């Protein structure tokens, strides 16, 4: 935000720059003293070193006097990211185009850039106000470093002439990480989850139904159904009682009787 405020303060001083340049002309070797063609080429070179976002941000700022918030609203981008890009681009241009040795011309390079870019004269006066949509559209259309305005009237008129949307050059997409694409990513994610759930439901419907479980206790058959009751613990006892009824009940009498008969 400090950089944004610094830029805003710079734009507020643009109104005094013509008087400063008129009273104290810069040396011929500096950016301010170069002819328009050479200065335009130098500005084009400096802009070419910036990223597309930085280039677009600084062009909107110089042409239409938009601050970071306005640029962010126009580009539908995060204000903090726009402010950071504007501060970085301004510092880069200042390093390459300003002449610190000139007294009172610290910000004259900005005015020269504004003139070279073909900014409307009232843009300097209303640098704190919102630009017209038409002007912003023209500024957005000018995204390439070679599209400069200013004294090169022929080129400037071509660049600033409104063009139909279909005829405008295809600019690089503005990407601030994943944030601009987040709704699309969320839509794809929801679509994927929906497809997965639908596939699983369809797959579950194709699984054959489990066999019905009979409720209630069921009598389990023995692991081996014996043909004969051979494992009965009293098998021989019961068999003896079947073959010789009352033998066990009268065992003592039977033994006594057998001995009596033997004695006879």
């Amino acid at each position, binding site marked *: 935000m400090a950089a944004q405020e610094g830029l805003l303060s710079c734009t507020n001083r643009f109104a005094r720059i013509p008087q400063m340049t008129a009273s104290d002309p810069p040396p011929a070797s500096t950016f301010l003293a170069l002819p328009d063609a050479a200065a335009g080429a130098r500005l084009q070179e400096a802009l070419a070193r910036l990223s597309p976002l930085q280039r677009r941000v600084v062009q909107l700022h110089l042409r239409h006097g938009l601050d970071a918030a306005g640029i962010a609203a126009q580009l539908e981008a995060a204000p903090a990211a726009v402010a950071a890009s504007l501060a970085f681009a301004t510092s880069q241009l200042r390093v390459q185009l300003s002449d610190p040795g000139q007294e009172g011309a610290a910000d004259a390079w900005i005015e020269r850039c504004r003139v070279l870019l073909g900014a409307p004269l009232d843009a300097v006066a209303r640098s704190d106000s919102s630009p017209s949509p038409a002007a912003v559209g023209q500024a957005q259309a000018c995204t390439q470093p070679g599209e400069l305005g200013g004294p090169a009237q022929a080129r400037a008129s071509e660049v600033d002439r409104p063009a139909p949307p279909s005829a405008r050059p295809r600019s690089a997409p503005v990407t601030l990480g994943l944030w601009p694409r987040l709704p699309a990513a969320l839509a794809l994610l929801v679509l994927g989850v929906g497809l997965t759930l639908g596939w699983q439901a369809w797959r579950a419907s194709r699984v054959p139904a489990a066999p019905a479980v009979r409720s209630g206790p069921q009598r389990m058959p*023995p*692991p*081996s*159904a*014996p*043909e*004969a*009751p*051979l*494992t*009965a*613990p*009293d*098998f*021989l*006892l*019961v*068999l*003896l*009682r*079947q073959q*010789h009824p009352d*033998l*066990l*009940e009268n*065992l*003592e*009498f*039977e*033994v*006594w*009787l*057998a*001995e*009596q*008969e*033997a004695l006879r």
Partner: protein
Amino acid sequence: MKPLALVPMLLLAGAAGAQPAVPPAPTVPPPDAAELRRTLAPFERLLEGLPPVLRERLELHARAWLALSPEEQARLRLALADWDNLPPQEKLALRERFDAWEHLDQATRRAVLLSRERLAKMPPEVRAGWRARFDALSPEERLRYRFDPPTRAAMDLAGQLFPFVPAEEHAATLALLRALTPAQVDALRRELRRLPPNRRDAFRVQLLEQDAAGRAALLDPAP
């Protein structure tokens, strides 16, 4: 617990008292080997895990089963079902008598079965007369006839020679005395008369610890 796991315990319970001093003679003809294997086929896995005593017991059941006619087998199934419905006390009493029957020697068993056949052919009044004579005996005298004559003689001898035998050594002492020859019994009487009373029971224990040859060495007179 699996049902088959109970079978060894049940067989063991049935075979606990089925260790006759004299093995009973086979009362049923030996069945066909193939038929015996077929009858025991459902118990093949069970037989593999049984000790030899129980395995022989199960094979004895199978042979007895095969000796029966189909009608007798059906009756036996019903009798086994009826046996389960008997009161526990009655089953316990019958098990004791069956244990005594299995401990009878073979001659006594054969004589008992023959006398039953003869008695069945007698007129009812004659059978009643024999029954009245037996009932005239004292309860102690009647109870002695639960054992065969050699066992009763051994019991009498034990009462004379070893009047204080621990309960857990009754069976072994009776088996020892039953196995002695009359000459060995006379030698035992002489030896016990020579020993002081407090050493007579130690001599009995010494005899129990010996096998037949060791007992013979202790009791037979030196040549």
